[in-house]
């Protein structure tokens, strides 16, 4: 049962609700209480829904809850306006996933918990 854990992360998964360090400008998802620069002065910041791929892989041996989705691409995405996230690349032929490609963030079902558990929604990206 992953409900309480997923529930807690919903603002981040649904809305990219993170924060930004007022001292050094770094953007974080999930939000941090302390910036690696040492500052504790951070402000709420919603990350952008556009960005580009910094690096990626194609998962061919997935964990059990993703086994019927294989193969799928996972990327590190640098978002316009700051912050980096890791997410799947959806709706895109695998051969089109490349470093530097522009992506848009989309709201998708990440996985369902077994046959009878909840559907976990969150962000993915797709090449524009």
């Amino acid at each position: 049962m992953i409900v309480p854990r997923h529930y807690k992360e919903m603002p981040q998964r649904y809305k990219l609700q993170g924060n930004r360090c007022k001292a050094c400008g770094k953007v974080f998802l999930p939000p941090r209480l302390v910036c690696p620069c040492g500052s504790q002065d951070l402000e709420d910041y919603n990350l952008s829904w556009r960005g580009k791929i910094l690096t990626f892989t194609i998962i061919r041996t997935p964990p059990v809850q993703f086994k019927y989705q294989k193969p799928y691409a996972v990327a590190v995405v640098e978002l316009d306006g700051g912050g980096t996230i890791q997410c799947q690349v959806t709706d895109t032929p695998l051969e089109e996933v490349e470093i530097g490609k522009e992506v848009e963030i989309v709201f998708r079902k990440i996985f369902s918990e077994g046959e009878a558990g909840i559907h976990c929604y969150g962000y993915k990206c797709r090449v524009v």
Partner: protein
Amino acid sequence: MAVGIIGYGAYVPRYRIKAEEIAAQWGDDPEVIKRGLLLYEKTVPNQDEDTVTIAYQAAKYALVRAGIDPKEIGAIYIGSESHPYAVKPSGTIVAEALGMTPEIHIADYEFACKAGAEAMFVCYSHVKSGNMKYAMAIGADTSQGAPADALEYSAAAGGSAFIFGSDEEKIIAEVLYTYSFTTDTPDFWRREHQMYPQHGGRFTGEPAYFKHVVSAGRNIMEMAGLTAKDIQWAVFHMPNGKFPLRAGQKLGFKKEQIEPGWVVPWQGNTYSGASPNGLTATLDSAAKPGDLILMVSFGSGAGSDSFIFRVTERINEVRDMVPKLWDLIHGRKFYLTYGQYAKFRGKIHLNPDV
């Protein structure tokens, strides 16, 4: 007080399956399907898509066109026959993700293919009554037709969202008239715990679809004192390509008046999102300021909600703000084999995890 649509958006997935592919699987003649039902291909949801994600994307586009604060929306109603949960609302997920919670009224609707239009009906009524400033209605589905059933050629995925409001300068399509025509007609149903719907074959035609659609269309036009010549565009529920054309013909509409919203041959029947997608496709393409649009939904069981809209100048400002439905339908798409489609739609009996 004028009340109308102040924001709208549509979404269909990128995946498709062709009529030929389904026909080859079951030994049908694809030409019979294509000629007889006017169905060429249909949308298929990606494995990570469902009614909630489709509703979300359509709603997001509608919010862009409306240019309003999501918190101002007083209600969100999602009509669908494929809500991802049997118990647990779809609307809460979409509202939460779009920042509309917590001061919002939410309900999921179900009335076969009419659920989206009935959500529109209620949203319109809320605003008209002064009950709320804005209300969002969504019709979205990821419908399933049983393997080898004729429905398998049509049951598709997609949907549209509409925000109703009364700000004169924001109205894109003013609602002039509404009308509902409903009887108890068991032409199509799905019992609890069944994966696929059953239908009455030819019984779904005259006593169900045509009786309700034509009555709802005729009666609203009479109420408005209008004929098919006075109305520029017409949208009828699209279970296949043929039915809406014939319904239009019975009401005196020419094919050209229906074509801007006649998405079904390339999109399939998006059920609760079928007539809503017809309306967005019409707004996205042919509708000009001053034009009247007749929309008649149909839900098996059975009933039709009909609307007459008048398009405003605002359409020209908002049309290009987000992707248009026809562009999504004819844009980037990936064709699936029947096997891939069966996997995507959960039609394969899998070994349970231990």
